[in-house]
C-alpha cells in the first residue's frame, strides 16, 4: 500500500515537469498581478496555450497516438493534471471536448469525422460543447425533445432547445442528442449529431445563476440544416453512443473533486484565522465532521486511481463521492459564513461565490436523487422504481403527459 509513482510513472512525471519548467512562462496569467481581465482575451490566450500543451503532449494524454494523443492511461492523465496544477498554470480550455466528446468520436465516429474534427479540437482551434440536457430532460436524459427530421436528400433539419451548456458562447461545434423517431420507445429513437454552432438558426444565450454570473448557456435551434455526415454512431443509436460520453464524464468528475477546491485544508485555513472560532466546540465539531468526509473523498479518489491502474472502470458508486463533496462544501460554506458573518456574503468574497454556486452544482451531472437511485439499483441491487415509460413509444408518452410530442 503506497501513494508512490511506479518508476515508469515517475519518469513520465519528470518529463511533464521538465516541459512545464521550460514553457510555463508562456502560459496566460489568470490570477494575481498582471492577470488578464477581458473575457475574450482570456479565451483567446487559453486557446493558444491549449495548442502549446497539445504540442508538448500535455493534452489528449489518453487519446490514441494516431489522433495526436499520447496513447497513455488515466493515471498518466492524472499525473499530467497534478503537474499542471503544481506549475500554477491553466490547464486545457476545452476539457469537455478533449475529455469526453473527443473520446466519443474516437469510439463511434466515422474516419471522415475523426480526420476533420479531432485535430482542431485537441489544439484548441475549435472548442466543443455538450448538447445533451434540456429543460425537460436532465436526470431523465432519454426524454430529450430536440427533434431532427431527415429530408428526402438525406440531410437533416433540427429544432429544439438545450440548456446547461458550458462553453457554448465560444464553441465551434457541439455534440447534440436529438430525437429522430418519436414513434418508438424513448431510448430507441435517439441520434447523436455534430452541430456547427455558427450554423444559421443556432442562438446561444448566457444563463445567469445565483451569483449573477453566467456559467452556462441556453442554446436554441430553429430549423437548423445538418448534412448527412453529421450523424455520429448511426441513426437510432444515440442513447448507446451518449452513454460513452457519460462514462467519460463520470471518470472526469470522479477524479476531479479535489480540483474544485472543496477540500478540508482550504476550509480549515479559513477558520484557523479566527482565534475564537477555532476554540469553539461547536465550530470544531462541525469542522471535524465535514473535513473527515472530504478527506475520505480524497482517498476514495486514490482507490479509484488504483482500480484504473489495474484496468478496472469505476462503477456508479463514484457518484457517491460527488454527493459527499457537494454536501460537505455546502456545510462548510454555512459554517465559514456563520463564523465570518455577513462579510462572507460580500460581492467579492470567495465564500459568497461558493455558496451561490453549490445549490446548482447539487443537480449537475445528475441530481442527488437520481444518483442515489442509480447506486441503489446498480451497486446494492435494489429493485428499480416502477416505470411508466417502458416500451411505450415516445409520442404516446408525451401525449399522456399532456403535451404534444
Amino acid at each position, binding site marked *: 500500500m503506497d501513494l508512490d509513482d511506479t518508476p515508469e510513472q515517475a519518469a513520465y512525471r519528470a518529463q511533464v515537469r521538465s516541459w512545464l519548467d521550460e514553457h510555463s512562462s508562456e502560459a496566460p496569467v489568470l490570477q494575481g498581478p498582471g492577470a488578464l481581465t477581458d473575457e475574450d482575451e482570456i479565451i483567446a490566450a487559453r486557446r493558444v496555450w491549449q495548442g502549446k500543451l497539445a504540442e508538448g503532449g500535455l493534452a489528449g494524454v489518453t487519446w490514441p497516438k494516431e489522433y495526436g494523443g499520447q496513447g497513455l492511461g488515466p493515471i498518466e492523465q492524472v499525473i499530467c493534471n497534478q503537474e499542471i496544477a503544481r506549475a500554477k498554470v491553466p490547464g486545457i480550455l476545452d476539457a469537455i471536448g478533449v475529455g469526453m466528446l473527443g473520446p466519443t468520436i474516437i469510439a463511434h465516429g466515422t474516419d471522415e469525422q475523426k480526420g476533420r474534427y479531432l485535430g482542431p479540437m485537441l489544439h484548441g482551434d475549435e472548442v466543443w460543447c455538450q448538447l445533451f440536457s434540456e429543460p425537460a430532460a436532465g436526470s431523465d436524459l432519454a426524454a430529450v425533445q430536440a427533434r431532427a427530421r431527415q429530408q428526402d436528400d438525406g440531410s437533416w433539419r433540427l429544432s429544439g432547445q438545450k440548456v446547461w451548456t458550458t462553453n457554448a458562447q465560444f464553441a465551434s461545434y457541439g455534440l447534440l442528442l436529438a430525437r429522430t423517431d418519436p414513434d418508438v420507445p424513448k431510448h430507441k429513437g435517439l441520434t447523436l449529431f455534430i452541430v456547427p454552432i455558427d450554423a444559421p438558426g443556432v442562438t446561444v444565450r448566457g444563463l445567469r445563476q445565483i451569483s449573477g454570473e453566467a456559467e452556462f448557456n441556453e442554446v436554441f435551434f430553429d430549423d437548423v440544416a445538418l448534412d448527412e455526415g453529421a450523424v455520429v454512431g448511426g441513426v437510432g443509436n444515440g442513447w448507446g453512443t451518449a452513454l460513452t460520453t457519460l462514462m467519460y464524464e463520470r471518470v472526469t468528475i470522479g477524479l476531479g473533486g479535489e480540483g474544485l477546491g472543496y477540500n478540508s485544508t482550504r476550509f*480549515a485555513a479559513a477558520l484557523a484565522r479566527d482565534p475564537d472560532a477555532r476554540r469553539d466546540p461547536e465550530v*470544531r*465539531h462541525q469542522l*471535524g465532521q465535514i473535513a*473527515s468526509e472530504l*478527506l*475520505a473523498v480524497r*482517498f476514495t479518489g486514490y482507490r479509484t486511481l488504483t482500480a484504473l491502474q489495474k484496468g478496472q472502470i469505476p462503477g456508479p458508486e463514484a457518484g*457517491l463521492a460527488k454527493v459527499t463533496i457537494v454536501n460537505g462544501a455546502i456545510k462548510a460554506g454555512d459554517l465559514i459564513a456563520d463564523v465570518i458573518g455577513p462579510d462572507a456574503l460580500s460581492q467579492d468574497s470567495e465564500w459568497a461565490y461558493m455558496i451561490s454556486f453549490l445549490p446548482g452544482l447539487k443537480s449537475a451531472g445528475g441530481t442527488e436523487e437520481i444518483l442515489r*437511485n442509480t447506486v441503489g439499483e446498480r451497486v446494492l441491487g435494489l429493485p428499480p422504481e416502477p416505470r411508466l415509460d417502458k416500451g411505450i413509444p415516445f409520442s404516446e408518452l408525451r401525449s399522456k403527459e399532456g403535451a404534444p410530442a
Partner: protein
Amino acid sequence: MNLALSDEQEFLREAARGTLSRFKTVQAAREALDGEQGALPDLWPTACEAGWPGLLIGEAHGGAGLDAFDAMLVMGECGRVLAGVALLGHLPATAILDDSPNAAELMADLASGARRAAYLPAQPPGDLDERWSADPASGFARGDLPVAGEGGRDSDNGRVALTGSFAFVPDAPGANVLVGVALRDGLPVGVAVLADAPGVQVRPVTRYDVTRSLGHVTLKDSPAVVLDAPVESLTGAWHLAQALIAAESLGSVETALEVSVAYAKERFTFGRAIGSYQAVKHSLTEVLRQLENGRSLLYYAGWARRGAPGEFALAANSARSVASRALDHAARTMISVHGGIGATWEHDAPLYFRRAQLSRRLLGGTGSATDRVAGELLAQADAA
C-alpha cells in the same frame, strides 16, 4: 499509487471470515443478553491459532510483523459478526511493547497469545488541552493519568509504583499485562503492569453490549516497569486504537447493510418490494456512502501510520469519526427498514444497535475523535 488489498491481505481477511464463521457469535450475543452464563464462546484460542495476537509484533519477537491495516482487516471481520476477540485491548498494547526494547522478554508469549495484554487508554494532549487524560468512570470531565512514584528498592531498574485508575478498559478482564501511560515528573512514560501484581484490581463491567469485554482498572502502589518506548509510540497507540475500533465498526456496518438490503428486496408493501421506494433506497445508499467513506479513511490510516506518521492522528481520528457515525446510522436504518420486527428481541438488529451505542462512547468517544480532526487541521493550517 497502490491503495488496494494485496493478495496476502485478501487471504488474511478471507481466512478471518472463515475462522469466525465456525462460531455462532451473533446468536451467542442474544443468549448472553438473556443471562445465559457461558453463552459467549472463548475466541482467544482461535485467535492464537490464526496468529492474530502477534499481528503487530515484529518477526524478531515471534510476531507476524504486519501493520495497522492488516490488524484493521481482522477487526473488521470481528465487527461483522460481533465477535469479542480481545484484540482491541491487546493490539495497541503490543504496539507500545514492540517499540520498547526493555519489554523484549514479554514478547514471545504475547505474540503467541499464551499471555494477553490490554491497553490502558490514555488520550494524548490536543491543541486545546495540554494534558494527557483517561476516560472517566462517569460524567463529562476527563480523568488524570496515574502518577508514577518511586518503586522502593527496585527503582534503579526502571521500576515505579503506580497509583490511579482507568475506566472502561477494553478487554481488561483476564488480561495478563496492562500497558499504558503514566506521568513521571509531569512527563508521559509508557508503563507495563502485571495484572496479578500487588494493588492491581480489574473489575469487569458490562454495559448494554454484552459482546464487549470491559473492565475498570485501579492501581494502588502497583509495581510497574517504565518502558523505553518513545512518546510517539504512546500517542500512536491511542490513535491506533481509534483506527481499530473504526475498522471494527465498519465491519458491523457491512453486516447491517447486507441484512437490510436483503430484506428490502424480499419484503413487499402495496405490491412492490420496499427497496424500490426511494425513501428506503436512499437511506440504504446513505449507509453505503458512509461505509465507503469510512473504508477510504481506513486506507488513509493504514498507509499513514508508516507512510506519513505526521498525518496518522488526522487519518485515524477521521476514520473513527466517520465509522462511528456510520454505525450509528446503519444500526438505526437496519431497525427502521425492518419495521417493527427490527426492534424486537428476536431480531439481530438490536444487537448491532447495542454495539453502536456502546462503541461510540468508548476510547474517548466519537466526539473527541471528531474534535481532534479539527485540531489537527487547524494546526496544519497554522504551519502552512
